[in-house]
């Protein structure tokens, strides 16, 4: 792995270990109880998403038991060490109503945007991460950070609206440069030096804003909305320049580390995807520790995952359709192998949050991660009973370690629950049969 890990062993976390022994936030940074920053502000709660493709094989994925001490069937056996930090949700449904079942799209769009799309080329509209970012992402340098392990900029499940997909950062080297490059201000630096260019850049934006207003006055109604989106971006840029002039709060666990020198070559072999996923995860978690963002997205694979393994001629998606069910095992062994790889990486992702000490706990205590997929059984493109996870305790608002079943109720209940936990003023979410006003109360403290 990259240098970042070695540095973190020394400065902030215990790489590779399940034990949380990272440096605590120094007392000077916290209140007397270790539950808030010294200035009285509560420790921030962050929201994130994680995505994997091609669902599961129910027989070897869904635990037989519910509640706290649920079993871990073989497709999710790798979650053993993070089980206490996650919840698994099964038997929740997505409803397409009059819309077609769009292979590898309908399922994830319902989970992320609450609507059943009408065709493959439609963008879903605002996804849940953006809704949350609007609420909690406006005080950090990045409203959200979005990464993919596939190496493909298009593999993002985040959309600002029906016209705009969020850019997925796909290169660890570029991701490092974006977060910890020239404009990064170390919150723990002994001396704060405001960037003098920030003020000049801000004054330049005034002219850009005027230019946008000129354009807005004369474009047609459809394009006004696109300019509104531009204005939002411009205001966010202005806010960032302001922020560069303000001394950041110290973050003891924040150690930017060195830039990675190498990164995996292009390709979707599981070894390349896994390595990319771990490098991006490490950077993402450090970005959170440095409070560069409070909203994040990670895609382990695209929806119809094309992850491959050397020597096997079918990528995951192809295997899901063409591999025979092993009569003895009762499932598709190679297809299941790919799902198991996804779950190994999900475990890595969750574990990464347990390794950063924060307050009297760890970063995992102050995040809520919503993990979704695109199908239940990919072989027949079913969207009923798509599995979902959450990870993290959201600042003590969410209980973890449970397997819950939805009895066929809308899966959008979990998205609604997440939004409420993150403080959004929403009473319901989703459209038509996916619309719900009922949160999943069982997980709430």
């Amino acid at each position, binding site marked *: 792995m990259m240098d970042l890990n070695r540095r973190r062993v020394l400065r902030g976390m215990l790489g590779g270990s399940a034990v949380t022994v990272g440096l605590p936030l120094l007392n000077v940074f916290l209140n007397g109880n270790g539950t808030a920053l010294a200035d009285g502000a509560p420790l921030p709660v962050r929201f994130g998403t994680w995505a994997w493709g091609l669902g599961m094989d129910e027989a070897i994925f869904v635990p037989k038991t519910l509640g706290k001490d649920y079993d871990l069937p073989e497709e999710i056996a790798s979650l053993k060490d993070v089980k206490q930090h996650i919840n698994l949700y099964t038997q929740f449904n997505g409803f397409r109503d009059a819309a077609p*079942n*769009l*292979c590898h799209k309908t399922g994830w769009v319902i989970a992320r945007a609450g609507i059943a799309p009408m065709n493959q*080329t439609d*963008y879903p509209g605002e996804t849940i991460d953006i809704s949350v970012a609007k609420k909690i992402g406006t005080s950090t340098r*990045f*409203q959200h950070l979005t990464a993919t392990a*596939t*190496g493909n*900029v298009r593999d993002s499940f985040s959309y*600002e*609206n029906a*016209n*705009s*997909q*969020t*850019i997925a950062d796909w290169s660890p080297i570029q991701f490092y440069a*974006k977060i910890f490059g020239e*404009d990064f201000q170390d919150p723990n630096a002994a001396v704060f030096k405001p960037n*003098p*260019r920030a003020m*000049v*850049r801000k*004054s*330049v934006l005034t*002219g*850009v804003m005027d*230019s946008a207003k*000129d*354009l807005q006055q*004369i*474009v*047609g109604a459809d*394009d006004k*909305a696109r*300019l509104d*989106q*531009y204005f939002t*971006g411009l205001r*966010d*840029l202005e806010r*960032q320049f302001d922020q560069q002039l303000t001394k950041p709060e110290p973050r003891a666990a924040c150690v930017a580390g060195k830039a990675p020198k190498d990164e995996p070559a*292009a*390709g*979707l*072999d599981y070894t390349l995807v896994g390595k990319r996923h771990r490098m991006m995860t490490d950077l993402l978690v450090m970005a959170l520790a440095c409070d560069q963002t409070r909203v994040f997205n990670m895609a382990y694979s695209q929806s119809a995952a*094309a992850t491959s393994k*050397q*020597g*096997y*001629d*079918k*990528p995951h998606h192809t295997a899901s*359709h*063409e591999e*025979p*069910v092993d009569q003895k095992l009762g499932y598709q062994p190679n297809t299941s192998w790919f799902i198991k790889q996804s779950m190994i990486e999900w475990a890595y992702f969750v574990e990464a949050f347990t390794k950063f000490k924060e307050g009297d706990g760890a970063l995992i205590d102050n995040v809520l991660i919503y993990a979704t997929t695109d199908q239940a059984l990919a*072989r*027949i*493109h079913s969207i009923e009973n798509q599995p979902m996870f959450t990870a993290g305790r959201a600042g003590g608002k969410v209980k973890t370690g449970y397997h819950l079943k939805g009895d066929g109720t809308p899966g959008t209940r979990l998205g609604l629950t997440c939004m409420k936990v993150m403080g959004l003023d929403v009473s319901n979410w989703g459209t038509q049969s996916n619309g719900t006003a009922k949160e999943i109360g069982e997980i709430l403290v």
Partner: protein
Amino acid sequence: MSCSEGASERKVASAPAVTPADYHGTVAHVRRITPEQYQNTVHYIFGRDLEVGNPFAPLRRTDGLVAAGAASAGVTTGELQQLQRSASSIAAQVVDKGNIEQKTPSRRDFLVPCKPADPAVADDACAAKFISQTSRLLYRRPLPDARVTELVATAHKGTTDLKDFYAGLGTVLEGMLIDPKVLLIADVVEPDPAHPGKQRLDAYSLASRLSFFLWNAAPDDALLKAAEKGDLFDAKKRAKIVEMMIASPRLEDGVRAFFDDMFGFEDFANLAKDPTAYPMMTGAVIKDAREQTLRTIVEHLLVEKKDYRDLYTTRSTFMSPALATVYQVPTKPGWVPYEFPKDSPRVGLLTQISFLALGAHPARSSPTYRGKALREKMLCQKVPAPPANVDFSALENPAASHRTQRDRVDFHLQNPVCAGCHKITDPMGLVLENFDGAGRFRTTEKGAVIDVTGTLDGKNVDGPAQLGQAMHDHPALTSCLVRRLYSYGTGGPLTRGDNPAIEALNKAFGETGYRVPDLLRMIANSDAFYEVIATPVEQKSADAGAAQSAAAH
């Protein structure tokens, strides 16, 4: 090269004029600039050695073209942040003072057209000169004087605050590079005095449309001057200008960009093959495969000015050492012209590695992918998505009897649920089964002789050469190109209102012998190209046009 260069020795072409009797003009668009257009523009203004990066969000492929998706794309918050970072980097490079030890050039010496008396002190006259010159090219029209004055004042303040003239100028350039009038290509509309009741693009928007169409970059200085003088509304002068643009080497950039888009070559960015199955498919091979096809297209269409259809039957191409290992042919260092021999199975674009490797799995070929690509990318036909509730269990393999891909996909054609779509894709995809997932030639698969017979829309074919000929003769081949080029040129998806122009162009394209430069010329010169029907950017009157235009841009 400016569009005035080389003009004098070339005659205006005699391609038939296209003025469909019943055209309704094209839709006016506000399209987001593409990464390539942005880069080409920056490179034209500041030099090709500048690092631009790709700060843009991906566009949605619309009606077969990524470029058409630009007509509905917004600029996201995260994207604007990346654009600002990129702008900062570009500006820093432009005003860089250079470093002898690091062997970096002092770009400011030749990109800023004057020198301040004291580099730590503001020089408004020098700043104004740089800003006026640069903004005109970036915004694709002159900025109003008042706006230039504002930018000079901003540069002055920046210089004072940062105690550095070039830093102050650089921050103003950063702002210009993220200005929505730079990032969004807005069609500005005005009443058409030649056709009362109708509207047309204003001269600068027409210049932009022409330039992005033919060069995939913003207009150069000469084209802007022509717009300024009103030459673009004089049919004869416009024809001459179009001819100069077609004669420019920059046409190659435009044609490459178009075919790269039409053939979906953005997928090369993430193409990788299983090294166990195809150890020879290195990154160099994948990179060169894309380049080979683009070189073949440019040579065939622009240099030799041959029939577009012959691209599917030609044996002429280019070879690189990396590709030669897959084609298993001798070659020389570098790129060299190459002619496949008469008895070679390599005939036309469908047998090049670019098409074969993109239409395949990481470790095996895919007749279905190839058939789908052939139909959707080259014939503009839509292959329906597979039904969601199909149980593929009957497709299970390996079955002992399934040795070739034909054996495997035969199930699709026998199963009525699958056959509906697979009959559209597989019969022609199977004809290319002599080429494996990397594009290597083979005659057997797992010991079984490969059968390369098939059909394309009722025509029986036996082998890639006959498939290439069937493509050559397919009426949708040329009409697809016309549709895609027209959509590409007008900056958005086609509408029904475009049909008369498309029909007229189809006919005229045939009359030219399917010469693409003639088609480009006809589209660029057609009235339909600059007459517009919708007015996202309106002007109140022709008289107010200049003022309004200045205010808008």
